[in-house]
């Protein structure tokens, strides 16, 4: 059973999700992970799909005139509850909007081997907000990284908070 990464882009309207997932169900494809959001009136969807059909066949079945769809076979790596060797953090940046905020912040994280595992940004009025889930290698000097992030934040006139993710195991 193969795994395919499917992306769907299109103008948002009621029924887009139903159409895509209905086509997948008709193919006997199983949606393992998915995420979806609206950006500027467009729907953006990414799905990890398993099933008997290969990616080319999936693409044929999902083709729709008002949607841009891609499907490609992937070697998915999944690690549930394994010792992944990383530490989870949440990064928050907020300040006046300007070009280059994401690239500046992500470059600081990347220099220490930090991996952004989830991110959302929003612009509301003049305020630009970035929230990112970050995984850091255990050996990273977090205090030094926070100082570097704070310096970059100050150069962007932005406030930055960087804190360990709240444990949600009860």
């Amino acid at each position, binding site marked *: 059973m193969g795994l395919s990464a499917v992306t769907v882009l299109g103008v948002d309207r009621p029924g887009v999700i139903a159409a895509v997932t209905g086509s997948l169900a008709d193919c006997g494809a199983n949606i393992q992970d998915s995420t979806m959001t609206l950006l500027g009136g467009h729907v953006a969807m990414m799905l990890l799909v398993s099933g008997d059909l290969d990616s080319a066949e999936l693409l044929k079945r999902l083709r729709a005139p008002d949607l841009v769809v891609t499907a490609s076979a992937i070697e998915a790596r999944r690690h549930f509850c394994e010792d992944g060797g990383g530490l989870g953090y*949440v990064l*928050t940046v*907020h*300040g*006046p909007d300007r070009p280059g905020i994401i690239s500046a912040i992500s470059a600081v994280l990347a220099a220490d081997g930090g991996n952004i595992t*989830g*991110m*959302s940004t*929003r612009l*509301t*009025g*003049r*305020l*630009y*907000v970035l*929230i*990112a*889930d970050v995984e850091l290698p255990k050996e990273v000097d977090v205090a030094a990284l926070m100082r570097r992030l704070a310096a970059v934040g100050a150069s962007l*006139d*932005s*406030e930055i*908070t960087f804190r360990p*993710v*709240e444990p949600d195991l009860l």
Partner: protein
Amino acid sequence: MNERSKQTIRRSSERSERAIRHGTPREVLTAPHPLLSSVAEPVDPTDPVVVAAAADLLATLRHESSTTGLAASQIGLRLRLIAFDTRVHPRGRSSAGELVVANPRLARASHWDHGREGCASIPGLTADVLRATRITVHGHLPGTGEAVTIEADAFEARCIQHQLDHLDGLLFLDRVPGALSLHRRLHSCDA
């Protein structure tokens, strides 16, 4: 909060209310205004300047009908003053009524839970934020300077903690638990 505490707050707040009756609504600052990221200064609650500031804060809260709480920094004053009134909020349980508190200090916090909140200074966004749902806060009433203790739960506790964060230059954005916890604002039932 027991009935006696409620009556004490009510009597004290009525005396305080007389002292800060004549305020003027001010403009609510919106992020990224730098004052919203600054730490507020402790105040003398009997100082006429502070009493006037408390009056303006209360007048602004009354004027901003969709807001249940405000901190002085939101109206451009770097003073440790907060105002709140959650009496009519649908998620409210405890209610100390309409209150302005000087130098509020969180003494006890327990029963943590995530809940949606927004901010008058951040129009357009809300987030799921972890807050204590039971708190005890000590402070003083502007005007009389009387000490006051507030025991709050549910939404009132969330609202007060949100205002306390403002006094330390923190916005609810600084407490968002993850990338998927930030939302476009869909409703107005927020702190």
